């Protein structure tokens, strides 16, 4: 058996039953990565030496039947914005080239404590700004289903690595759809938890009030196991919630009869690819057959989400990225003549075009005289979007169903020169970030040309267990044929 091809949820069972050994799984993963990643470019760097020694320790625990957690010994990849002590962490930016943090992010510590085997750091759009991984300073990641296409972004490396079976699970971050959109475009499961469910400590910040860490896996059970490992309160992140973390995997197989799906008209409008719409509607029908009630709803303020998002996110980013000034760490422009010159040269050479565009947008939105018209108004829209969801939930809706992305994977270079077209990638995912709600993307099918399509469920705050149960029901009901990306079988 090729255990490393198993979805994370099944691999965990195989490890538990002693049918797979962590070191063997890791070696398969590393071998496949060596074979494929030159073409895919999901990983920016591997931490294979450290991974081999933690896999060996996991072998020993598994042999003693004393695993630290269900994911003990599972190889995991990390988006390159999770601080890992002593391991270069660039956030996809030239400005952090060579920077090795002196500490572990809380989720990295939690993964270690759960026995996960940390395999390496994954490519991403610079500072998580982008929807195609083309904004990485280190070159784009490709989609394993079609190497001429993007895997989406910003967690493109995290999604592509799982889709290509380089690792069974990865962590990404989702600020406006950065986990769910690439998961949809690569045919895997990606979950953005409720804001505050997972600690942000040690994660290079893009937009603090929107950023949230989440898992990527081939199956819903794998996402549930990973979420269980990383969720929970962290005294180092005061925006993290004190609510206890349930055993997400435990209730996965429970029936969904009686749960209600809301289908918002605003999420099926102009610009939605007909193949995507068809696939998403078939997924909704599958859940209906499982006993869910389906009702049309309206989220009237969601169409304003992109506009509000690009003010709030860029405003916070303009402040979060001020620390990259060449003074303490990372890239420093040589031969600066003065302090101002140092700042200007360092930031001009260190940041890419999209990051600069967003810093300028955000700086503008916060400037004296413009704050009320832009930042403050965007925050009001944000409150209205949240209120729309609250009203749907209090009218009995358990989850909102929609497409994840308006279209399947697009070609590299297709949208890179048109920022507004690129921003529309996130049209269905951004509202959940603005409202702080959990959202999940799961595969719903393929286009006629064999590109994956994802559909999204958005749930009540901190009801990830419900969301995962619905997602698992859809996964079960759709029973998509087992298909490997052409890259993997090549």
């Amino acid at each position, binding site marked *: 058996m090729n255990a490393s091809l198993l979805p994370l949820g099944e691999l965990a069972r195989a490890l538990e039953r002693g049918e797979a050994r962590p070191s063997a799984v890791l070696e398969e993963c590393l071998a496949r990565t060596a074979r494929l990643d030159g073409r895919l470019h999901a990983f920016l760097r591997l931490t294979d030496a450290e991974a081999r020694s933690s896999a060996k320790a996991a072998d020993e625990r598994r042999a003693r039947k004393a695993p630290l957690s269900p994911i003990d010994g599972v190889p995991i990849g990390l988006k390159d*914005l*999770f*601080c890992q002590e002593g391991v270069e*962490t660039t*956030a996809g930016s030239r400005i*952090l080239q060579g*920077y090795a*943090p*002196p*500490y572990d*992010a809380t989720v990295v510590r939690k993964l270690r404590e759960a026995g996960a085997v940390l395999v390496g750091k994954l490519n991403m759009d610079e500072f998580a700004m982008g929807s195609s991984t083309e904004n990485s300073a280190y070159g784009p990641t490709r989609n394993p289903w079609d190497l001429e296409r993007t895997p989406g972004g910003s967690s493109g490396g995290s999604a592509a690595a799982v889709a290509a079976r380089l690792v069974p699970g990865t962590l990404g971050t989702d600020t406006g759809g950065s986990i769910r959109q690439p998961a949809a475009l690569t045919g895997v499961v990606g979950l953005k938890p409720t804001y505050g469910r997972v600690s*942000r*400590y*040690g*994660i*290079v*910040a893009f*937009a*603090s*009030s929107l950023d949230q860490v989440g898992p990527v896996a081939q199956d819903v059970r794998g996402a549930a196991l990973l979420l269980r490992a990383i969720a929970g309160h962290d*005294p*180092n*992140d*005061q*925006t993290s919630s004190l609510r206890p973390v349930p055993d997400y995997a435990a209730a996965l197989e429970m029936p969904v009869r009686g749960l209600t799906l809301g289908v918002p008209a605003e999420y099926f409008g102009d610009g939605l690819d007909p193949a995507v719409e068809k696939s998403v509607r078939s997924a909704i029908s599958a859940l209906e057959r499982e006993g869910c009630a389906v009702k049309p709803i309206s989220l009237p303020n969601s169409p304003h989400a992109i506009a509000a998002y690009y003010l709030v996110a860029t*405003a*916070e980013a*303009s*402040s979060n*990225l*001020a*620390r990259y*000034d060449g*003074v*303490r*760490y990372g890239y420093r422009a040589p031969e600066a003549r003065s*302090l101002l010159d140092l*700042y200007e040269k360092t930031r001009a050479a260190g940041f890419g075009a999209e990051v600069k565009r967003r810093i300028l947008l955000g*700086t503008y939105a*916060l*400037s*004296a005289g413009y*704050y009320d018209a832009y*930042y403050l108004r965007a925050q009001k829209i944000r409150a209205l979007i949240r209120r729309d969801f609250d009203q749907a939930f209090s009218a009995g809706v358990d989850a909102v169903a929609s497409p994840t992305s308006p279209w399947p994977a697009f070609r590299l270079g297709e949208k890179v020169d048109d920022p507004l077209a690129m921003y529309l990638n996130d049209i269905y995912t951004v509202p959940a970030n603005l409202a702080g709600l959990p959202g999940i993307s799961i595969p719903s099918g393929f286009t006629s040309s064999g590109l994956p399509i994802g559909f999204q469920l958005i749930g009540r705050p901190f009801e990830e267990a419900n969301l995962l149960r619905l997602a698992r029901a859809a996964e079960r009901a759709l029973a998509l044929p087992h298909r490997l990306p052409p890259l993997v079988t090549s």
Partner: protein
Amino acid sequence: MSVSDWEPVIGLEVHAQLLTKSKIFCSCSTAFGAPPNTQVCPVCLGLPGALPALNRGAVEMAVKAGKAFGCQIAERSIWARKNYFYPDLPKGYQISQYELPICKGGAVPVPQPDGNVRKVPLTRIHLEEDAGKNVHGPSGSQVDLNRSGVPLIEIVGEPALRSAEEASEYLKALRLALIYLGINDGNLEEGSFRCDANVSVRRKGTAKLGTRVELKNINSFRFVRLAIDHEIERQVAALERGEKVVQETRLFDNEKGETRPMRTKEEANDYRYFPEPDLPPLAVSREWVAKVPVPKLPHEQLAELLAAGVPAADARTITGDPKLVDLYARIAMAAGNDSARRAANVVTGEVARLLNEGALDLGAPKFQPAQIAEVFRLQDAGTLSSTAAKEVLGELLRTGKPPARIVEEKGLAQVSDESALEAIVDAVIARSPAEVERYKAGKKNLLGFFVGQAMKDLKGKGNPGVLNALFKKRLEPT
């Protein structure tokens, strides 16, 4: 036209470092003077991914100040980011408070020379983090981030002050109050108490405020007066020449004693304040506020000392330093009823003298206040003369040796026992027949001669009161 035709309007902004042991958003030490960049962590270095975690101790100190000055304390206040670039600011923004500060309103009581207390109104008090420090040397500029993240309160006064002298009085009263509250060490030189002044002038009798200039870099009380006076004169001179005052920030040059422009309004930073997304709103419940203890303020302490009978001059000296107040109170307590005046006397006398000489450290005293009370009792019992008592006190304060041992070692006990003194009295009378005759004939001031003779025999250790009485008894038959 002259300065006297113009009215200065002054408001002060004070940054006071709070005396918490650890920084406001991480657990690094706040101790001053450590080698550069040794009291730092990912949070106060502003490393990628680090997040602030609030130290409630700093909040408690801000609440203490707010209660002491009668501010409204917000049950919910908001952290804000103040954005600007500078090498000593590792995140590129300072976490502060902007629209909803923790304290609003209130007033600082400023004792006046006539004994009244003037209340100088406050706009607000808010919490924030300190920046690091740029260190400029021959090999270039370096940054020390030990201070980065030390908690500060900024105390913003209303423009209610009308002269440099008033500003200086206000500042002194505020500094002392913060020291009393135990939340700031009042050290201007080390920069733990820093002051910026907003100064404008207007023609006397007009209500409209003039254009204001912000003065920075004022680090002593003398410079406060110098800088403000210089600025008032500069503004009046400009206005009288028909020029306008430019809204700007000026730096006080303490070597030249003048202010010079730092940046104009156009060059001023746009700080792009916005709510800090990494911290939830600061919640301070009524119940919690009620539990925060507020010690007496200097003016209340002064009133208390005066009421206890301490002379005004002594009372002012003592209340000028909370350590002296504390010592005074402990001595008075140990010595019991009616000892206020005497306790004050020791504090402003022997204690102050030894402090001046550097022979005493009230931070780590060697003596116990009860031992001082013991000296009082020895004096009351006649064992010590007032001179000897002073000597014992001095030695006690320096060494903490038990008073009885000092008396013994120094041979300071005076002889008050009548039976011991009678033999001496007899001997003096026996060897001074002529003086005895003259005394009995009415030359009563010879009593001093007899006591003097006896003291000589006793090597000065006789109790003069007892000797007086004994001689009188022997020479004036009843």
